[in-house]
């Protein structure tokens, strides 16, 4: 908790620099007194002019007041944006999202104030001329680009029509004025004589040309869009070829204008062809920026209907553009594109989530209105026919509005789903290319179009051959029996590019690019240090609430106090136990041996009988485990020298399990310092995507590993659990499905480490599980971090981690990778991690190992108080 408190203290300086100090206004926004000191017209003999002057002054003052209000709202919005960026950098997505939503609201409010402000100007100024020059002079604020300049100018020009909303005004203006301004700016930027601005504007005013440019913008901006001037030239030429003659004509006009380009200040003129392409591109971008920047200024961008859809479509298109790119590129370039896309998709997701919140509110409000009207109608006296019928009409309208609101919500939810799918796809592709970059270097050339990303894991598409080839077998239809290696299809490089040369019939080995280096890298050491710190800084139980204490005193045999914990005694025996709170549950730990502990579920009645039962069980588990330890310490290992694939199956959409998975990233590197660890592309399986099937995803990956000669898998499961399954949002995998997959690969040794509550049901299932397919004694080993009836906890005060996993890493690291201490076997490290977890967070790990055609053995087997031989 110390961390949290410190964070609370450190976080703000709210009234600091960014927030404008003590609440008094900042210098830049100080209001000046009205322009009373100016020399004013006193000539009453010409009242028309006098009043015209007064009106102008009044307009300026009103305008200034409104601008001041708008500016303050915008300043606050800017502050929120900065804080949002800061929050996002610190990983607090929720806060970032809230701040951004607030910033949008503030801007909308500012736009609304400012739109009202301009409604009055028509009565004073010629609407055609506006008052741009004087305003520009009066407001010489940041003018960084020509686009900003023109936007500022348009901002004033645009809102001349009273009674029109920003969208309406925008639409009206963009037809004409934007075109004009773009034309002027374009000529200015390209040293084209200003009299040609009209020709440029004419191009923009043409609806067909607008459509063409809009599409062209998207194409040029696409991730896989043309990059070099030659590519741009070619791309534009292809697009122009199929244009309607009218647009062709407009473009010819534009080309003619560009021909009038004068030499720049440096006197050098670029080659004409290149200039044309570049100029067109810049022209289009300018056009687009105008639209976008100004729409944003007016607060239209985030509220337009269908925005969510557009975002979803553009994200999807951008992703497809990258993964279907038929060109050899350095993997680092593909990584960058995908990383940028991921960032963009995250932004889009945040924006659409904001829209959904708004849409939900609208939908709920509409529903409430319907209910209210129905209630009113129901309360009417039957004789009030007229009123009833009036309400009937209202209800009909309200229901219609509700339906529209519901449909809008559905559309946005669908867009969000699509964005999340795209995000998942990007992550999948990114993981694939990250793996290649990590193992083969960033300059390795890849051709994205040759990889089938619709498969999990992504697979290299069969290369086109002259003779027809049989369809590749899908590995997941039936339980596969291992195919003789010689019969493998000739794409022995499936899943990677760089093993393509090895297609002989020799025994398979995983591609070299899958190897995980287990060197003494700083990053592994740093990760291990973090884990140690997490393992060593566990708070244990906290004191009971007042009510809980009262219940303990009333129901249990309280014999004293230990610190802030009550000490109680069971009905039988002389041992004493501290009782406290752990999370929402009750924890007990034996005085003098905190590794004998138990967690009593919150819904269990807090009676002496309950306590007796849990205390007794804890002692029995402990005795059994003490006996088991001998067997564990004998040298249980998860792998010998053979390649062991490290695989994760995670719920990345969940903050907690996703956080744990992310903060466990160093674990495979640590394992690689002890074992021959390999990681195949797609080995980090995120099973939380809507509609994902964890069972299928895992099976496919196992098949890929199997096909590449891997016979040992270490599977980390980061997911919430119930007594019957491990859950990934709406998706799940049951223990039976998991062992079902393992049974499909009878030569595969599998070690499972699951953080799931209740062991995800694995404990109960493994008690019954018999390995009828394989014949090795401990082919399947399952580590659950809790007993079947209890929940697991994650310490999140420093890192997202379970005490068991942190301690396991700490002990596995000892004596390896150049670290001090005696190297432990995996079994020893587990035993110690189990002890730490028992005293640190009162969870009790268990191990199950399979036996051929017999129920598996497990630690803390109360029916077998002998040594746990399963792991020896």
């Amino acid at each position, binding site marked *: 908790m110390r961390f*949290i408190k410190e*964070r609370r203290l450190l*976080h*703000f300086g*709210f*009234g600091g620099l960014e*927030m*404008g100090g003590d*609440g*008094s*206004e900042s210098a830049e926004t100080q*209001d000046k*007194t*009205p322009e*009373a000191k100016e020399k004013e017209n*006193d000539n*009453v*003999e010409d*009242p*028309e002019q*006098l009043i015209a002057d*007064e*009106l102008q*002054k*009044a*307009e*300026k*003052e*009103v*305008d200034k*007041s409104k601008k001041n*209000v708008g500016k*303050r*709202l915008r300043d*606050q919005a800017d502050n*929120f944006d900065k*804080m949002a960026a800061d929050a996002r950098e610190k990983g*607090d997505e*929720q806060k970032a999202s*809230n701040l951004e*939503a607030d910033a949008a609201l*503030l801007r909308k*409010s500012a736009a609304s*104030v400012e739109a009202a*402000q301009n*409604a*009055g100007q028509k*009565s*004073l100024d010629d609407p055609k001329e506006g008052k741009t020059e004087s305003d520009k002079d009066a407001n010489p604020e940041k003018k960084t680009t020509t686009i900003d300049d023109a936007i500022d100018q348009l901002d004033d020009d645009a809102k001349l029509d009273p009674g029109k909303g920003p969208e309406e005004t925008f639409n009206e203006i963009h037809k004409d004025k934007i075109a004009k301004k773009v034309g002027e700016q374009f000529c200015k930027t390209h040293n084209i004589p200003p009299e040609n601005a009209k020709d440029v504007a004419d191009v923009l005013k043409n609806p067909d040309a607008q459509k063409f440019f809009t599409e062209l913008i998207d194409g040029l901006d696409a991730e896989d869009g043309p990059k070099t001037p030659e590519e741009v030239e070619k791309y534009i030429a292809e697009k122009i070829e199929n244009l309607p003659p009218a647009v062709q004509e407009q473009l010819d006009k534009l080309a003619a204008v560009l021909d009038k380009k004068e030499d720049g200040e440096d006197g050098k003129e670029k080659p004409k062809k290149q200039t044309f392409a570049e100029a067109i591109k810049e022209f289009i971008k300018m056009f687009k920026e105008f639209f976008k920047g100004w729409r944003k200024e007016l607060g239209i961008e985030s509220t337009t209907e269908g925005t969510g859809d557009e975002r979803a479509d553009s994200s999807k298109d951008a992703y497809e553009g990258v993964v279907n790119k038929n060109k050899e590129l350095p993997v680092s370039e593909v990584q960058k594109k995908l990383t940028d896309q991921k960032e963009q998709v995250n932004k889009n997701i945040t924006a659409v989530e904001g829209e959904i919140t708004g849409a939900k509110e609208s939908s709920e409000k509409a529903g409430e209105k319907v209910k209210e009207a129905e209630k009113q109608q129901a309360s009417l006296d039957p004789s009030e026919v007229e009123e009833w019928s009036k309400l009937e009409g209202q209800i009909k309208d309200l229901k219609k509005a509700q339906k529209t609101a519901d449909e809008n919500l559905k559309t946005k939810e669908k867009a969000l789903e699509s964005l999340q799918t795209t995000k998942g796809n990007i992550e999948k592709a990114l993981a694939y290319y990250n793996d290649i970059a990590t193992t083969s270097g960033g300059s390795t050339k890849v051709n994205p179009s040759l990889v089938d990303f619709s498969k999990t894991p992504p697979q290299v598409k069969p290369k086109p051959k002259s003779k027809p080839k049989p369809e590749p077998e899908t590995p997941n239809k039936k339980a596969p029996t291992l195919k003789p290696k010689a019969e493998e299809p000739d794409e022995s490089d499936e899943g990677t590019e760089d093993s393509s040369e090895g297609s002989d019939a020799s025994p398979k080995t995983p591609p070299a690019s899958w190897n995980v280096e287990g060197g003494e890298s700083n990053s592994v050491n740093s990760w291990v240090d973090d884990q140690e710190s997490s393992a060593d800084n566990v708070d244990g139980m906290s004191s009971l609430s007042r009510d809980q204490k009262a219940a303990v005193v009333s129901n249990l045999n309280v014999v004293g106090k230990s610190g802030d914990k009550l000490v109680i005694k069971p009905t039988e025996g002389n041992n004493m136990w501290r009782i406290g709170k752990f*999370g*929402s549950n009750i924890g007990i730990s034996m005085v003098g041996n905190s590794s004998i502990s138990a967690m009593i579920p919150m819904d269990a009645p807090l009676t002496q009988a309950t306590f007796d039962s849990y205390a007794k069980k804890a002692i029995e588990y402990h005795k059994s485990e003490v006996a088991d330890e001998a067997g564990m310490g004998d040298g249980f290992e998860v792998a010998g020298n053979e390649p062991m694939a490290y695989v994760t199956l995670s719920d990345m959409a969940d*903050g*907690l*399990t996703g956080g744990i998975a992310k903060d466990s990233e160093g674990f495979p590197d640590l394992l690689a310092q002890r074992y021959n660890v390999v990681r195949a592309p797609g080995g980090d399986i995120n099973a939380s995507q809507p509609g994902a099937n964890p069972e299928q995803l895992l099976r496919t990956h196992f098949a890929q590993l199997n096909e590449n000669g891997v016979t040992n898998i270490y599977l980390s499961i980061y997911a919430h659990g119930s007594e019957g399954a491990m859950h990934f949002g709406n998706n799940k995998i049951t223990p039976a499905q998991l062992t079902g997959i393992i049974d499909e690969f009878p030569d595969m040794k599998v070690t499972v480490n699951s*953080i799931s509550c209740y062991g995800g049901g694995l404990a109960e299932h493994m008690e019954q599980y018999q390995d009828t397919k394989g014949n090795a004694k401990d082919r399947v080993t399952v580590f659950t971090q809790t007993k079947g009836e209890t929940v*697991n*906890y*994650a*310490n999140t*005060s420093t890192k997202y981690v379970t005490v068991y996993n942190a301690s396991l890493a700490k002990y596995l690291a000892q004596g390896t990778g150049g670290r001090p201490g005696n190297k432990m076997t995996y079994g020893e490290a587990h035993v110690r991690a189990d002890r730490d977890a028992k005293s640190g967070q009162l969870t009790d790990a268990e191990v199950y190992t399979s036996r051929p055609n017999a129920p598996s053995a497990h630690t803390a087997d109360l029916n077998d108080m002998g040594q746990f031989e399963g792991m020896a």
Partner: protein
Amino acid sequence: MTNDTTIQIPALPKLPVDGKEFFDVLMGEIEPDLVSDAVESLKEKYADETSEEHEVRMERYRNAIATYREKRDHYFESMADQVRQFEKALKESAEGRVTEMEQTRLQELEDMFSTDA
């Protein structure tokens, strides 16, 4: 945990719709002749006045303009105060909002510290 609330924007200062409205409201109470829509018809209205009457009317206008300007300046000084108050209230609201978010987040963190996996 989600946070469904949004920042409470304090009441905006009561701003006139536009300068014309502002002028006409003020001037309407002082000298109806000088309201913007009426000023164009003054020549017609006073076509037959004598030079003395004209002088009296001009003096009335001078006084009216001075009174209007006094009221106008007072109004906008007061508006500047209102804007300052608005800024202060906005900052307070923003501070409250961020504190609220922070507290929600802290609560989440504290809950998550011992959250079921």
